[in-house]
């Protein structure tokens, strides 16, 4: 297999979409009638082929060539990127999930997420440009004025223009409230934005004619901290009333970073020097707006762990079948390393967690769709809460696993894994950013224990735990192979319940430092259990449809193998994390650094 070897895991994706989540039921909702399962699968097949054939081969090129800043402030992306981006736009893929009013395809978010999985696996550095554009679109869809939407949205939905999100400043990273970029009103109703932003993904590039920067800044007399943040549209090129492009705005990329990975994605220092900006929504509401749209962006970043895990897994499996070394137990001659039990453990550890991640990510997206579209308000509310709970888990657990999975793939390759030639080391370097940006995983954990456990005074998380317990009971009742899965899941669910109760109590007692101390092990625990829950559902579904023609018996039988391995050998980690969650802050506070 070459270093570009990646094929979209369409059969698996389809299984999850049809039998773990339910795209058939989504298609029954008003507005999604055209998104019947057959059409969705057709779209994923063609998009998957396009991404695998056109973007995957550019992944290594991008890693080697990097995006480069030229002396005039322009940025040149690696060879082939501009052409690939143009083809991506021409094919109409950017538009799939967005509203038809702005030229979108009106498909459910879960379909966008499945497409994103493949695009990211094919080329993570490339995928960040559409990803940031999507975030900007989301913001304008929710909070832009009608005029702003008309001016910018349709061009962004097609992908003709791209978008960026400008939060970070040197002194304002996790603490966005510390930002100092200023905006002052101009006579014509627009604003003048001045300040410096750092780490801006695709802040400058040669893929599109215009870049719509969304910039967080403070207006005069804004309250301090997050309550005084406003959001501005600052186009790279100003747009005339008739939609044509006018003069360059006073925004410039002053440098780009040399990084550990995602080298093709330009990470820019942006200087705004009295740049013309347009206020989105109301002043001082920027942080509230960001929170509203954070779920989709965080889920997308969580997905990066899945994508690169899958890509690295495909390479590891191929390498393990090819590389001959040593003699496996019972073999009469030399063996391919895939025959060694320890290598099989590595591969199955990857596969089980990849499948668990896929289920959790797609479930989170399905919750977002139901929260947006279900006719019953109580269902909408419950699904919104579940999405809110699952989002930090998808982001934090997903990206931590991304690092672990790609690391295992390097290990499967032995010394060749450490050598760049095999391409597997790149995935490990590329994914390392994902636990950091879009809210560090530490911040995700704090969000989970601080904000999300308290949803509906704890009832939301209790309902989730009850749903997990119900799946466990179902599996126990199903007997055979499923029985052990159910028993393991029930044990893990109890541990998570205990941890949850402890944190809720600590919170009620005002021991916030204890809660913060347990945040990261709790998020991990929640991820491990959510994964076990979803794999149990996957095994139940596989046994229910055994014999149907769409999936081979072998494929369905493997679902049980994977779920059983996860339940009996990975899921016990959950109980092991309980002491870390409930230890409190004492030792952490006592330690001297």
């Amino acid at each position, binding site marked *: 297999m070459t270093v570009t070897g990646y*094929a979209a895991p369409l059969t698996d994706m389809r299984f999850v979409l049809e039998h773990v989540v339910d795209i058939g039921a989504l298609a029954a909702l008003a507005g999604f009638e*055209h998104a019947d399962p057959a*059409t969705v699968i*057709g*779209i994923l*097949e*063609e*998009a998957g*082929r*396009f991404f695998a054939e*056109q973007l995957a081969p550019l992944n290594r090129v991008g890693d080697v060539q990097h995006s480069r800043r030229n002396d005039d402030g322009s940025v040149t992306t690696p060879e082939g990127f501009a052409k690939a981006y143009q*083809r991506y736009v*021409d*094919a*109409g*893929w950017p*538009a*799939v999930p967005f509203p038809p009013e702005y030229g979108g*395809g009106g498909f459910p978010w879960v379909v966008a997420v499945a497409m994103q999985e493949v695009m990211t696996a094919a080329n993570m550095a490339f995928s960040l440009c559409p990803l940031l554009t999507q975030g900007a679109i989301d913001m304008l869809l929710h909070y832009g004025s009608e005029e702003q939407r008309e001016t910018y949205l349709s061009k962004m939905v097609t992908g003709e223009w791209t978008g960026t999100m400008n939060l970070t400043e040197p002194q304002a990273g996790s603490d966005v409230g510390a930002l100092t970029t200023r905006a002052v009103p101009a006579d014509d109703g627009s604003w003048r934005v001045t300040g410096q932003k750092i780490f801006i993904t695709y802040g400058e590039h040669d893929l599109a004619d215009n870049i719509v920067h969304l910039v967080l800044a403070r207006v005069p007399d804004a309250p301090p901290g997050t309550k005084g943040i406003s959001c501005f549209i600052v186009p790279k090129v100003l747009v005339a009333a008739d939609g044509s492009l006018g003069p360059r705005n006073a925004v410039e990329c002053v440098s780009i970073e040399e990084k550990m990975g995602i080298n093709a994605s330009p990470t820019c220092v942006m200087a705004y020097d009295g740049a013309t900006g347009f206020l989105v929504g109301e002043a001082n509401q920027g942080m509230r707006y960001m929170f509203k749209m954070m779920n989709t962006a965080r889920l997308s970043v969580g997905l990066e762990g899945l994508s690169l895990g899958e890509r690295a897994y495909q390479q590891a499996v191929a390498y393990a079948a090819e590389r001959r070394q040593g003699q496996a137990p019972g073999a009469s001659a030399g063996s391919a390393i895939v025959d060694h039990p320890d290598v099989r453990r590595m591969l199955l550890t990857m596969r089980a967690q990849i499948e668990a991640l896929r289920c959790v990510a797609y479930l989170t997206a399905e919750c977002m769709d139901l929260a947006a579209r279900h006719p019953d308000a109580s269902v909408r509310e419950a699904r919104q809460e579940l999405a809110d709970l699952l989002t930090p888990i998808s982001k934090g657990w997903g990206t931590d696993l991304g690092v672990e999975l790609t690391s295992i793939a390097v290990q499967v390759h032995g010394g060749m894994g450490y050598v760049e030639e095999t391409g597997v080391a790149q995935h490990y370097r590329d994914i390392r950013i994902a636990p950091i940006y879009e809210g560090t995983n530490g911040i995700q954990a704090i969000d989970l224990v601080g904000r999300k456990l308290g949803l509906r005074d704890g009832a939301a998380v209790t309902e989730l735990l009850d749903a997990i317990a119900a799946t466990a009971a179902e599996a126990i009742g199903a007997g055979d192979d499923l029985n052990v899965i159910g028993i393991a899941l029930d044990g893990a669910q109890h541990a998570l319940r205990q941890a949850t109760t402890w944190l809720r109590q600590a919170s009620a007692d005002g021991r916030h430092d204890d809660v913060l101390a347990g945040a990261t092990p709790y998020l991990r625990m929640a991820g491990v259990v959510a994964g076990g829950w979803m794999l149990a559902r996957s095994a139940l579904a596989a046994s229910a449809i055994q014999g149907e023609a769409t999936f*081979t018996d072998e494929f369905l039988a493997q679902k049980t193998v994977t779920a059983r391995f996860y339940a009996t050998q990975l899921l016990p980690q959950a109980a092991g994390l309980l002491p870390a969650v409930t230890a409190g802050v004492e030792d952490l506070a006592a330690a001297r650094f």
Partner: protein
Amino acid sequence: MNVIVCVKQIPDPAQVGSLDPTDNTLKREGKLILDESDSYGVEMALQLVDTAGGGEVGLVSMAPNDEMSGLRTALAMGAAKAVLVSDAELAGSDALTTAKVLAAAASRLGDIDLIIAGTESSDGYTGTVPEQIAEVLGLPSITFAKSVAIDGGTLRVNRQTEAGYDEVTCPLPAVVSVTAGVVEPRYPSFKGIMAAKSKPVEKVTATDLGVTPVGWAGAGQQIVEVAAAPEREAGEIVEDDGDAHLKIVEFLDKLKVI
């Protein structure tokens, strides 16, 4: 300008295939996809219709179990309509029966100016169906086209040969087979996929077409022997000490490719 393209739907070559042990034919039960070597014909047909400024691309395909995946890809690329022949009785059809079926199916799509096929399928490689279709329909046939142009009522083809190409012409309507890789097939667009859902696909059987299935037993061809492909041999690495180009020339000369 109405162009018909014969498209075969085949097992995904990326998956390991298997042969039916009773007659050594390829198993085709699972999901099928558009044969890549037919995607060139579809692209060529779309370009010809585009250049002509009017007309349509129609598709004909014979496949088991009402298989539509490959047809859907070609419809999403821009073809307007299709006839799908799916009939359990046709399982194991030889090249000649296939040609009769496709010829009859093509005739259901109205006036034809040109029929395009791949020179050979990627899963069967008999490489005789296009010429047999021409014979069945009484049309002229040109094989191994690397480029195709229409000039009034005349078909102009650059026909690939070992040494280069021949310029060949014939009157329309005609049948032409195109070699793989001569054009860059477009990817179906999102809009194309959505539009394909409502394009007409007529499903017919052998009886509808008036063709008598003969099965593998009555086939005019036989698979005499099956042998495993030789293991891929280790490549030869040429170190460049300044004379690498000479070594490469020598190597290619040995292979008789230059």
